[in-house]
Protein backbone atom coordinates (compact mmCIF):
# COMPACT_ATOMS: atom_id res chain seq x y z
CA UNK A 1 0.00 0.00 0.00
CA UNK A 2 1.34 3.47 -0.84
CA UNK A 3 1.90 5.79 2.07
CA UNK A 4 -0.88 8.22 2.83
CA UNK A 5 0.83 10.59 5.23
CA UNK A 6 -1.38 13.64 4.75
CA UNK A 7 -4.68 11.77 5.04
CA UNK A 8 -3.53 9.68 7.98
CA UNK A 9 -2.26 12.63 10.00
CA UNK A 10 -5.44 14.58 9.36
CA UNK A 11 -7.29 11.83 11.24
CA UNK A 12 -4.60 11.29 13.84
CA UNK A 13 -3.51 14.80 14.79
CA UNK A 14 -6.43 15.96 16.97
CA UNK A 15 -6.03 12.95 19.26
CA UNK A 16 -2.26 13.01 19.09
CA UNK A 17 -2.13 16.63 20.26
CA UNK A 18 -4.14 15.83 23.39
CA UNK A 19 -2.19 12.62 23.95
CA UNK A 20 1.16 14.42 23.84
CA UNK A 21 0.09 17.44 25.89
CA UNK A 22 -1.83 15.58 28.63
CA UNK A 23 -0.06 12.22 28.74
CA UNK A 24 3.40 12.02 27.14
CA UNK A 25 4.65 15.42 28.23
CA UNK A 26 3.39 15.00 31.84
CA UNK A 27 5.15 11.62 32.03
CA UNK A 28 8.44 13.33 31.15
CA UNK A 29 7.66 16.43 33.15
CA UNK A 30 6.88 14.59 36.36
CA UNK A 31 10.18 12.73 36.07
CA UNK A 32 12.00 16.08 35.77
CA UNK A 33 10.01 17.66 38.61
CA UNK A 34 11.03 14.81 40.91
CA UNK A 35 14.62 16.12 40.68
CA UNK A 36 13.72 19.67 41.64
CA UNK A 37 13.24 21.46 44.92
CA UNK A 38 9.76 22.85 44.34
CA UNK A 39 9.12 24.77 47.51
CA UNK A 40 11.47 27.56 46.52
CA UNK A 41 10.64 30.17 43.88
CA UNK A 42 11.93 29.61 41.28
CA UNK A 43 12.27 25.83 41.48
CA UNK A 44 15.87 24.71 41.48
CA UNK A 45 17.53 21.56 40.24
CA UNK A 46 18.47 19.42 43.26
CA UNK A 47 18.72 15.77 42.21
CA UNK A 48 18.91 14.28 45.68
CA UNK A 49 16.43 16.61 47.34
CA UNK A 50 13.22 14.58 46.92
CA UNK A 51 14.65 11.15 46.35
CA UNK A 52 16.96 11.51 49.34
CA UNK A 53 14.03 12.53 51.48
CA UNK A 54 11.94 9.66 50.12
CA UNK A 55 14.52 7.06 51.13
CA UNK A 56 14.55 8.30 54.71
CA UNK A 57 10.86 9.09 55.10
CA UNK A 58 8.94 6.83 57.52
CA UNK A 59 5.66 8.10 56.03
CA UNK A 60 6.76 6.80 52.64
CA UNK A 61 7.65 3.36 54.03
CA UNK A 62 4.37 3.26 55.88
CA UNK A 63 2.41 4.05 52.71
CA UNK A 64 4.50 1.62 50.66
CA UNK A 65 4.00 -1.14 53.24
CA UNK A 66 0.23 -0.57 53.38
CA UNK A 67 -0.05 -0.49 49.60
CA UNK A 68 1.94 -3.70 49.16
CA UNK A 69 0.02 -5.40 51.97
CA UNK A 70 -3.29 -4.57 50.30
CA UNK A 71 -1.88 -5.75 46.94
CA UNK A 72 -0.58 -9.04 48.25
CA UNK A 73 -3.78 -9.98 50.06
CA UNK A 74 -6.59 -8.29 48.17
CA UNK A 75 -5.59 -9.00 44.56
CA UNK A 76 -5.21 -12.82 44.86
CA UNK A 77 -8.40 -13.13 46.91
CA UNK A 78 -10.33 -11.05 44.41
CA UNK A 79 -8.95 -12.87 41.36
CA UNK A 80 -9.76 -16.25 42.91
CA UNK A 81 -13.27 -15.03 43.69
CA UNK A 82 -13.65 -13.66 40.17
CA UNK A 83 -12.56 -16.97 38.65
CA UNK A 84 -15.10 -18.75 40.86
CA UNK A 85 -17.87 -16.34 39.87
CA UNK A 86 -17.04 -16.66 36.17
CA UNK A 87 -16.87 -20.47 36.20
CA UNK A 88 -20.14 -20.82 38.12
CA UNK A 89 -21.93 -18.19 36.01
CA UNK A 90 -20.83 -20.16 32.96
CA UNK A 91 -22.31 -23.42 34.26
CA UNK A 92 -25.08 -24.84 32.05
CA UNK A 93 -26.85 -25.96 35.25
CA UNK A 94 -27.45 -22.39 36.41
CA UNK A 95 -31.03 -21.09 36.41
CA UNK A 96 -31.97 -17.39 36.42
CA UNK A 97 -28.52 -16.58 35.12
CA UNK A 98 -29.44 -12.93 34.48
CA UNK A 99 -30.17 -12.29 38.16
CA UNK A 100 -26.85 -13.71 39.29
CA UNK A 101 -25.00 -11.78 36.61
CA UNK A 102 -26.69 -8.60 37.74
CA UNK A 103 -25.76 -9.25 41.38
CA UNK A 104 -22.06 -9.72 40.64
CA UNK A 105 -21.65 -7.21 37.82
CA UNK A 106 -23.71 -4.33 39.24
CA UNK A 107 -20.87 -2.93 41.43
CA UNK A 108 -18.97 -2.22 38.20
CA UNK A 109 -21.17 0.82 37.53
CA UNK A 110 -21.11 2.15 41.10
CA UNK A 111 -18.93 5.20 41.62
CA UNK A 112 -16.17 5.31 44.21
CA UNK A 113 -17.79 8.09 46.24
CA UNK A 114 -21.22 6.45 46.36
CA UNK A 115 -19.95 3.09 47.47
CA UNK A 116 -17.43 4.56 49.91
CA UNK A 117 -20.30 6.38 51.61
CA UNK A 118 -22.38 3.22 51.86
CA UNK A 119 -19.51 1.12 53.21
CA UNK A 120 -18.72 3.77 55.77
CA UNK A 121 -22.26 3.69 57.02
CA UNK A 122 -22.62 -0.09 56.89
CA UNK A 123 -19.49 -0.66 58.97
CA UNK A 124 -19.91 2.10 61.56
CA UNK A 125 -19.25 0.97 65.13
CA UNK A 126 -22.53 1.29 66.98
CA UNK A 127 -25.14 1.74 64.28
CA UNK A 128 -23.60 -0.04 61.32
CA UNK A 129 -25.68 -2.85 59.88
CA UNK A 130 -22.64 -5.16 59.75
CA UNK A 131 -21.95 -4.91 63.47
CA UNK A 132 -25.67 -5.26 64.22
CA UNK A 133 -25.78 -8.45 62.17
CA UNK A 134 -22.59 -9.75 63.84
CA UNK A 135 -24.19 -9.06 67.22
CA UNK A 136 -27.42 -10.75 66.27
CA UNK A 137 -25.59 -14.02 65.58
CA UNK A 138 -23.69 -13.77 68.85
CA UNK A 139 -20.41 -12.35 67.56
CA UNK A 140 -18.77 -9.29 69.12
CA UNK A 141 -18.83 -5.90 67.37
CA UNK A 142 -15.73 -4.95 65.38
CA UNK A 143 -14.37 -1.43 65.60
CA UNK A 144 -13.64 -1.10 61.89
CA UNK A 145 -12.31 2.45 62.02
CA UNK A 146 -10.18 2.75 65.19
CA UNK A 147 -7.90 -0.25 64.79
CA UNK A 148 -5.49 -0.76 61.94
CA UNK A 149 -6.19 -4.43 61.14
CA UNK A 150 -9.97 -4.14 60.79
CA UNK A 151 -9.55 -0.85 58.93
CA UNK A 152 -7.23 -2.51 56.41
CA UNK A 153 -9.63 -5.44 56.16
CA UNK A 154 -12.47 -3.01 55.48
CA UNK A 155 -10.55 -1.35 52.64
CA UNK A 156 -9.83 -4.75 51.12
CA UNK A 157 -13.45 -5.88 51.48
CA UNK A 158 -14.67 -2.69 49.82
CA UNK A 159 -12.25 -2.90 46.88
CA UNK A 160 -13.00 -6.60 46.40
CA UNK A 161 -16.72 -5.92 46.34
CA UNK A 162 -16.28 -3.17 43.78
CA UNK A 163 -13.91 -4.99 41.38
CA UNK A 164 -14.48 -8.77 41.61
CA UNK A 165 -17.37 -8.65 39.14
CA UNK A 166 -15.35 -6.50 36.76
CA UNK A 167 -12.67 -9.17 36.63
CA UNK A 168 -15.31 -11.89 36.42
CA UNK A 169 -16.64 -10.25 33.23
CA UNK A 170 -13.21 -10.43 31.62
CA UNK A 171 -12.61 -14.01 32.79
CA UNK A 172 -16.08 -15.08 31.68
CA UNK A 173 -15.33 -13.76 28.18
CA UNK A 174 -12.11 -15.81 28.27
CA UNK A 175 -14.02 -18.92 29.39
CA UNK A 176 -16.53 -18.56 26.60
CA UNK A 177 -13.74 -18.47 24.04
CA UNK A 178 -12.54 -21.96 25.08
CA UNK A 179 -13.90 -24.39 22.47
CA UNK A 180 -16.48 -26.89 23.77
CA UNK A 181 -14.82 -29.91 22.17
CA UNK A 182 -11.84 -29.64 24.53
CA UNK A 183 -14.20 -30.61 27.34
CA UNK A 184 -16.14 -33.17 25.32
CA UNK A 185 -13.00 -35.22 24.79
CA UNK A 186 -12.16 -35.03 28.50
CA UNK A 187 -15.70 -36.01 29.50
CA UNK A 188 -15.58 -39.04 27.19
CA UNK A 189 -12.36 -40.05 28.90
CA UNK A 190 -14.19 -39.77 32.25
CA UNK A 191 -12.01 -36.96 33.56
CA UNK A 192 -13.77 -35.44 36.59
CA UNK A 193 -15.08 -31.85 36.44
CA UNK A 194 -12.61 -30.80 39.14
CA UNK A 195 -9.68 -32.24 37.21
CA UNK A 196 -10.98 -30.62 34.02
CA UNK A 197 -11.00 -27.27 35.81
CA UNK A 198 -7.40 -27.56 37.02
CA UNK A 199 -5.92 -29.25 33.94
CA UNK A 200 -7.87 -27.65 31.11
CA UNK A 201 -9.67 -24.49 32.18
CA UNK A 202 -7.01 -22.84 34.34
CA UNK A 203 -4.08 -23.34 31.92
CA UNK A 204 -6.18 -22.04 29.01
CA UNK A 205 -7.28 -19.05 31.10
CA UNK A 206 -3.76 -18.15 32.15
CA UNK A 207 -3.35 -15.21 29.74
CA UNK A 208 -6.68 -13.72 30.83
CA UNK A 209 -5.91 -14.22 34.51
CA UNK A 210 -2.48 -12.62 34.19
CA UNK A 211 -4.10 -9.70 32.34
CA UNK A 212 -6.65 -9.26 35.15
CA UNK A 213 -3.96 -9.54 37.79
CA UNK A 214 -1.86 -6.82 36.15
CA UNK A 215 -4.87 -4.50 35.73
CA UNK A 216 -5.84 -5.09 39.35
CA UNK A 217 -2.34 -4.60 40.71
CA UNK A 218 -1.93 -1.33 38.85
CA UNK A 219 -5.37 -0.20 39.94
CA UNK A 220 -4.90 -1.16 43.57
CA UNK A 221 -1.42 0.37 43.62
CA UNK A 222 -3.02 3.78 43.03
CA UNK A 223 -5.71 3.23 45.63
CA UNK A 224 -6.90 6.62 46.81
CA UNK A 225 -10.63 7.16 47.19
CA UNK A 226 -11.36 4.29 49.58
CA UNK A 227 -8.78 5.19 52.25
CA UNK A 228 -9.55 8.87 51.61
CA UNK A 229 -13.29 8.58 52.19
CA UNK A 230 -13.99 5.31 54.01
CA UNK A 231 -11.21 5.33 56.61
CA UNK A 232 -11.04 9.13 56.69
CA UNK A 233 -7.72 10.24 55.13
CA UNK A 234 -5.88 6.96 55.69
CA UNK A 235 -6.86 6.55 59.34
CA UNK A 236 -6.51 5.40 62.01
CA UNK A 237 -3.26 7.33 62.39
CA UNK A 238 -1.94 6.56 58.89
CA UNK A 239 -2.85 2.88 59.32
CA UNK A 240 -4.50 2.75 55.90
CA UNK A 241 -2.47 5.44 54.18
CA UNK A 242 -1.53 4.33 50.66
CA UNK A 243 0.95 5.70 48.14
CA UNK A 244 -1.96 7.35 46.33
CA UNK A 245 -2.97 9.14 49.50
CA UNK A 246 0.62 10.16 50.30
CA UNK A 247 0.90 11.62 46.80
CA UNK A 248 -2.33 13.53 47.33
CA UNK A 249 -1.24 14.89 50.71
CA UNK A 250 2.21 15.89 49.53
CA UNK A 251 1.20 17.20 46.14
CA UNK A 252 -2.12 18.85 46.78
CA UNK A 253 -2.29 19.60 50.50
CA UNK A 254 1.35 20.60 51.10
CA UNK A 255 1.81 21.66 47.43
CA UNK A 256 5.14 19.86 47.46
CA UNK A 257 5.15 18.90 43.78
CA UNK A 258 8.73 17.63 43.67
CA UNK A 259 8.29 15.17 46.50
CA UNK A 260 4.89 14.05 45.22
CA UNK A 261 6.44 13.41 41.81
CA UNK A 262 9.06 11.18 43.40
CA UNK A 263 6.21 9.22 45.03
CA UNK A 264 4.44 9.03 41.68
CA UNK A 265 7.54 7.72 39.97
CA UNK A 266 7.94 5.08 42.65
CA UNK A 267 4.48 3.88 41.64
CA UNK A 268 5.51 4.01 37.99
CA UNK A 269 8.61 1.95 38.79
CA UNK A 270 6.46 -0.67 40.49
CA UNK A 271 4.07 -0.68 37.53
CA UNK A 272 6.92 -1.13 35.05
CA UNK A 273 8.34 -3.99 37.12
CA UNK A 274 4.93 -5.67 37.23
CA UNK A 275 4.44 -5.22 33.48
CA UNK A 276 7.83 -6.81 32.82
CA UNK A 277 6.90 -9.77 35.02
CA UNK A 278 3.66 -10.05 33.01
CA UNK A 279 5.54 -10.05 29.70
CA UNK A 280 7.87 -12.71 31.09
CA UNK A 281 4.93 -14.84 32.27
CA UNK A 282 3.23 -14.49 28.88
CA UNK A 283 6.32 -15.21 26.76
CA UNK A 284 5.86 -17.77 24.01
CA UNK A 285 7.23 -21.15 25.14
CA UNK A 286 10.23 -22.01 22.95
Amino acid at each position, binding site marked *: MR*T*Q*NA*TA*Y*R*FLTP*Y*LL*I*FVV*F*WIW*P*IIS*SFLISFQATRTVPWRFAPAFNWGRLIGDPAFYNALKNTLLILVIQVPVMIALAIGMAV*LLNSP*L*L*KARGLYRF*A*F*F*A*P*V*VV*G*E*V*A*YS*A*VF*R*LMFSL*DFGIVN*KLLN*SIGLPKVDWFSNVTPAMALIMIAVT*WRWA*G*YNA*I*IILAGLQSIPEDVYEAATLDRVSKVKQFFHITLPLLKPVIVFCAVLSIIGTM*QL*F*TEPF*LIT*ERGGPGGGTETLGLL*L*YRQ*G*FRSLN*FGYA*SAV*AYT*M*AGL*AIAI*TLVQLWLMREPK
Partner: protein
Amino acid sequence: MTSRSQARLGRSILLHLFLTPLALIWLFPLWMMVVFSTMPDNGIFSPGIELLPHDGFIDNFNNLQRDTNFVGAIGISVSVAVTYTVLSVLLTSMAGWALARYEFHGKGAVVAIIFGTITLPYAVVLIPQFIMVARDFALANTWIALIVPPLFNSLGVLFMRQAFSMMPAELFDAARVEGVKEWRIFLFVALPLARPMLAALAIILFLASWNNYLWPLLINSQPGAMTAPVALGTLIGLTKVSWGGIMAGAVMLTVPMLIVFVLLQRHFIAGIAAGAVK
Protein backbone atom coordinates in the same frame (compact mmCIF):
# COMPACT_ATOMS: atom_id res chain seq x y z
CA MET B 1 -34.68 -41.04 37.48
CA THR B 2 -31.31 -42.27 36.31
CA SER B 3 -28.29 -41.89 38.53
CA ARG B 4 -26.74 -39.53 36.01
CA SER B 5 -29.59 -37.08 36.03
CA GLN B 6 -29.74 -37.39 39.83
CA ALA B 7 -26.09 -36.42 40.01
CA ARG B 8 -26.84 -33.50 37.70
CA LEU B 9 -29.70 -32.35 39.90
CA GLY B 10 -27.51 -32.67 42.98
CA ARG B 11 -24.80 -30.58 41.39
CA SER B 12 -27.33 -28.00 40.27
CA ILE B 13 -28.72 -27.69 43.81
CA LEU B 14 -25.23 -27.33 45.27
CA LEU B 15 -24.42 -24.65 42.72
CA HIS B 16 -27.48 -22.60 43.64
CA LEU B 17 -26.97 -23.16 47.37
CA PHE B 18 -23.51 -21.67 47.04
CA LEU B 19 -24.20 -18.91 44.55
CA THR B 20 -27.43 -17.52 46.04
CA PRO B 21 -25.97 -16.37 49.40
CA LEU B 22 -22.97 -14.93 47.58
CA ALA B 23 -25.25 -13.01 45.21
CA LEU B 24 -27.28 -11.69 48.15
CA ILE B 25 -24.12 -10.53 49.93
CA TRP B 26 -23.04 -8.81 46.71
CA LEU B 27 -26.37 -7.03 46.33
CA PHE B 28 -26.51 -6.08 50.01
CA PRO B 29 -24.53 -2.79 49.83
CA LEU B 30 -26.66 -1.57 46.93
CA TRP B 31 -29.85 -2.58 48.71
CA MET B 32 -28.72 -0.81 51.89
CA MET B 33 -27.88 2.29 49.86
CA VAL B 34 -31.50 2.42 48.75
CA VAL B 35 -32.80 1.63 52.25
CA PHE B 36 -30.63 4.30 53.91
CA SER B 37 -31.67 6.87 51.33
CA THR B 38 -35.28 6.49 52.48
CA MET B 39 -34.62 6.63 56.24
CA PRO B 40 -34.39 9.67 58.51
CA ASP B 41 -31.00 10.11 60.22
CA ASN B 42 -32.37 9.10 63.61
CA GLY B 43 -33.50 5.88 61.95
CA ILE B 44 -30.11 5.21 60.37
CA PHE B 45 -28.41 5.84 63.70
CA SER B 46 -30.68 3.71 65.86
CA PRO B 47 -29.96 0.34 67.43
CA GLY B 48 -32.59 -1.64 65.47
CA ILE B 49 -31.99 -3.61 62.31
CA GLU B 50 -33.88 -2.05 59.38
CA LEU B 51 -33.72 -3.86 56.07
CA LEU B 52 -36.72 -2.41 54.22
CA PRO B 53 -37.13 0.98 52.57
CA HIS B 54 -39.14 3.73 54.30
CA ASP B 55 -40.69 6.78 52.68
CA GLY B 56 -38.20 9.53 53.50
CA PHE B 57 -36.37 9.86 50.19
CA ILE B 58 -37.77 13.30 49.38
CA ASP B 59 -36.89 14.63 52.86
CA ASN B 60 -33.39 13.24 52.49
CA PHE B 61 -33.06 14.78 49.07
CA ASN B 62 -34.10 18.16 50.51
CA ASN B 63 -31.53 17.77 53.29
CA LEU B 64 -28.86 17.00 50.71
CA GLN B 65 -29.80 20.04 48.65
CA ARG B 66 -29.52 22.12 51.84
CA ASP B 67 -26.02 20.75 52.55
CA THR B 68 -24.72 21.27 48.99
CA ASN B 69 -26.14 22.32 45.63
CA PHE B 70 -26.43 18.76 44.42
CA VAL B 71 -28.83 19.44 41.56
CA GLY B 72 -26.37 21.96 40.12
CA ALA B 73 -23.53 19.48 40.54
CA ILE B 74 -25.55 16.79 38.75
CA GLY B 75 -26.11 19.26 35.92
CA ILE B 76 -22.35 19.78 35.60
CA SER B 77 -21.70 16.03 35.78
CA VAL B 78 -24.23 15.22 33.04
CA SER B 79 -23.00 17.95 30.70
CA VAL B 80 -19.36 17.06 31.24
CA ALA B 81 -19.92 13.32 30.79
CA VAL B 82 -21.95 13.82 27.58
CA THR B 83 -19.45 16.26 26.06
CA TYR B 84 -16.48 14.13 27.09
CA THR B 85 -18.06 10.98 25.64
CA VAL B 86 -18.86 12.58 22.28
CA LEU B 87 -15.42 14.16 21.94
CA SER B 88 -13.54 11.11 23.12
CA VAL B 89 -15.43 8.73 20.82
CA LEU B 90 -14.80 11.06 17.89
CA LEU B 91 -11.09 11.63 18.58
CA THR B 92 -10.23 8.04 19.41
CA SER B 93 -12.17 6.56 16.51
CA MET B 94 -10.48 8.97 14.09
CA ALA B 95 -7.09 7.99 15.48
CA GLY B 96 -8.03 4.31 15.50
CA TRP B 97 -9.15 4.62 11.86
CA ALA B 98 -5.83 6.18 10.83
CA LEU B 99 -3.85 3.47 12.62
CA ALA B 100 -5.99 0.66 11.22
CA ARG B 101 -6.38 1.69 7.58
CA TYR B 102 -3.44 3.84 6.42
CA GLU B 103 0.26 3.34 5.97
CA PHE B 104 2.22 6.42 7.02
CA HIS B 105 5.55 7.53 8.42
CA GLY B 106 5.73 7.28 12.19
CA LYS B 107 2.88 4.76 12.48
CA GLY B 108 5.07 2.20 14.22
CA ALA B 109 6.32 4.80 16.67
CA VAL B 110 2.81 6.02 17.53
CA VAL B 111 1.59 2.48 18.19
CA ALA B 112 4.68 1.65 20.23
CA ILE B 113 4.35 4.76 22.40
CA ILE B 114 0.66 4.11 23.05
CA PHE B 115 1.25 0.48 23.99
CA GLY B 116 4.47 1.22 25.86
CA THR B 117 2.88 3.76 28.20
CA ILE B 118 -0.53 2.18 28.66
CA THR B 119 0.27 0.43 31.93
CA LEU B 120 1.86 3.49 33.52
CA PRO B 121 -0.22 4.60 36.50
CA TYR B 122 -2.35 7.69 36.02
CA ALA B 123 -0.79 9.07 39.21
CA VAL B 124 2.35 9.84 37.22
CA VAL B 125 0.70 12.53 35.11
CA LEU B 126 -1.46 14.00 37.86
CA ILE B 127 0.93 16.65 39.10
CA PRO B 128 2.11 18.01 35.73
CA GLN B 129 -1.50 18.00 34.48
CA PHE B 130 -2.55 19.96 37.54
CA ILE B 131 0.30 22.47 37.23
CA MET B 132 -0.42 22.91 33.53
CA VAL B 133 -4.19 23.32 33.78
CA ALA B 134 -4.39 25.25 37.04
CA ARG B 135 -1.29 27.46 36.78
CA ASP B 136 -0.11 27.67 33.17
CA PHE B 137 -3.52 27.75 31.49
CA ALA B 138 -5.40 29.16 34.53
CA LEU B 139 -8.37 26.92 33.75
CA ALA B 140 -9.16 25.53 37.22
CA ASN B 141 -12.88 25.39 38.02
CA THR B 142 -13.91 25.45 34.37
CA TRP B 143 -15.64 22.86 32.20
CA ILE B 144 -12.60 22.68 29.92
CA ALA B 145 -10.51 21.50 32.86
CA LEU B 146 -12.95 18.66 33.48
CA ILE B 147 -13.39 17.63 29.85
CA VAL B 148 -10.14 18.09 27.94
CA PRO B 149 -7.27 16.53 29.96
CA PRO B 150 -9.02 13.13 30.40
CA LEU B 151 -9.32 12.91 26.58
CA PHE B 152 -5.76 11.53 26.51
CA ASN B 153 -7.14 8.05 27.32
CA SER B 154 -5.69 5.76 24.66
CA LEU B 155 -7.75 2.63 25.32
CA GLY B 156 -10.42 3.90 22.91
CA VAL B 157 -7.81 4.28 20.18
CA LEU B 158 -6.73 0.67 20.55
CA PHE B 159 -10.34 -0.49 20.78
CA MET B 160 -11.39 1.33 17.60
CA ARG B 161 -8.20 0.42 15.76
CA GLN B 162 -9.08 -3.20 16.43
CA ALA B 163 -12.68 -2.66 15.28
CA PHE B 164 -11.70 -0.97 12.01
CA SER B 165 -8.92 -3.38 11.14
CA MET B 166 -11.35 -6.30 11.31
CA MET B 167 -13.49 -4.83 8.52
CA PRO B 168 -12.79 -6.14 5.01
CA ALA B 169 -10.82 -3.64 2.89
CA GLU B 170 -13.11 -4.13 -0.14
CA LEU B 171 -15.83 -2.16 1.63
CA PHE B 172 -13.74 0.98 1.52
CA ASP B 173 -11.90 0.31 -1.74
CA ALA B 174 -15.17 0.22 -3.65
CA ALA B 175 -16.00 3.72 -2.41
CA ARG B 176 -12.49 4.94 -3.17
CA VAL B 177 -12.72 3.75 -6.77
CA GLU B 178 -15.82 5.90 -7.13
CA GLY B 179 -13.80 8.86 -5.91
CA VAL B 180 -15.43 9.26 -2.49
CA LYS B 181 -13.30 11.40 -0.18
CA GLU B 182 -11.57 9.68 2.75
CA TRP B 183 -13.41 11.61 5.47
CA ARG B 184 -16.74 10.68 3.85
CA ILE B 185 -15.70 7.03 3.80
CA PHE B 186 -14.84 7.30 7.49
CA LEU B 187 -18.07 9.08 8.43
CA PHE B 188 -20.58 7.33 6.21
CA VAL B 189 -19.14 3.85 5.68
CA ALA B 190 -16.79 2.96 8.53
CA LEU B 191 -18.55 4.58 11.51
CA PRO B 192 -21.99 3.09 10.78
CA LEU B 193 -20.40 -0.34 10.44
CA ALA B 194 -18.67 0.09 13.79
CA ARG B 195 -21.88 0.99 15.62
CA PRO B 196 -21.79 -1.83 18.21
CA MET B 197 -18.19 -1.03 19.11
CA LEU B 198 -18.95 2.69 19.26
CA ALA B 199 -21.84 1.96 21.62
CA ALA B 200 -19.64 -0.15 23.89
CA LEU B 201 -16.93 2.50 23.91
CA ALA B 202 -19.38 5.35 24.53
CA ILE B 203 -20.99 3.60 27.49
CA ILE B 204 -17.66 2.84 29.12
CA LEU B 205 -16.38 6.38 28.58
CA PHE B 206 -19.58 7.93 29.88
CA LEU B 207 -19.41 5.79 33.00
CA ALA B 208 -15.74 6.65 33.56
CA SER B 209 -16.47 10.36 33.30
CA TRP B 210 -19.62 10.18 35.42
CA ASN B 211 -17.78 8.40 38.23
CA ASN B 212 -14.44 10.22 37.87
CA TYR B 213 -13.41 11.52 41.27
CA LEU B 214 -9.72 12.33 41.72
CA TRP B 215 -9.17 14.74 38.84
CA PRO B 216 -12.40 16.74 39.38
CA LEU B 217 -11.62 16.80 43.11
CA LEU B 218 -8.25 18.41 42.43
CA ILE B 219 -9.10 20.76 39.60
CA ASN B 220 -12.68 21.90 40.30
CA SER B 221 -12.79 22.35 44.05
CA GLN B 222 -14.91 25.51 44.14
CA PRO B 223 -18.51 24.87 45.24
CA GLY B 224 -20.15 26.13 42.04
CA ALA B 225 -17.80 24.13 39.81
CA MET B 226 -17.91 20.72 41.51
CA THR B 227 -19.14 17.57 39.83
CA ALA B 228 -21.71 15.47 41.69
CA PRO B 229 -19.25 12.87 43.11
CA VAL B 230 -16.98 15.65 44.37
CA ALA B 231 -19.88 17.55 45.92
CA LEU B 232 -21.05 14.37 47.62
CA GLY B 233 -17.51 13.55 48.75
CA THR B 234 -17.15 16.88 50.56
CA LEU B 235 -20.03 15.88 52.84
CA ILE B 236 -18.57 12.53 53.86
CA GLY B 237 -16.78 12.98 57.16
CA LEU B 238 -18.48 16.24 58.15
CA THR B 239 -20.11 16.09 61.55
CA LYS B 240 -23.27 18.12 60.98
CA VAL B 241 -24.47 16.50 57.83
CA SER B 242 -27.48 14.45 56.83
CA TRP B 243 -26.39 10.87 56.13
CA GLY B 244 -29.78 10.12 54.71
CA GLY B 245 -29.07 12.99 52.33
CA ILE B 246 -25.68 11.57 51.36
CA MET B 247 -27.34 8.25 50.64
CA ALA B 248 -30.01 9.97 48.53
CA GLY B 249 -27.15 11.49 46.53
CA ALA B 250 -25.45 8.11 46.21
CA VAL B 251 -28.71 6.65 44.90
CA MET B 252 -29.04 9.47 42.36
CA LEU B 253 -25.51 8.79 41.14
CA THR B 254 -25.92 5.02 41.03
CA VAL B 255 -29.46 4.02 40.08
CA PRO B 256 -29.47 5.69 36.62
CA MET B 257 -26.24 3.82 35.81
CA LEU B 258 -27.75 0.54 37.05
CA ILE B 259 -30.73 1.05 34.76
CA VAL B 260 -28.44 1.79 31.82
CA PHE B 261 -26.45 -1.30 32.76
CA VAL B 262 -29.52 -3.53 32.72
CA LEU B 263 -30.75 -2.10 29.41
CA LEU B 264 -27.41 -2.14 27.63
CA GLN B 265 -25.73 -5.04 29.39
CA ARG B 266 -24.40 -6.55 26.18
CA HIS B 267 -22.52 -3.38 25.17
CA PHE B 268 -21.29 -2.82 28.70
CA ILE B 269 -19.85 -6.30 28.93
CA ALA B 270 -18.35 -6.09 25.45
CA GLY B 271 -16.59 -2.87 26.41
CA ILE B 272 -15.24 -4.19 29.69
CA ALA B 273 -14.29 -7.58 28.27
CA ALA B 274 -12.19 -5.78 25.65
CA GLY B 275 -10.33 -4.07 28.47
CA ALA B 276 -11.57 -0.69 27.31
CA VAL B 277 -11.39 0.97 30.69
CA LYS B 278 -9.38 1.27 33.89
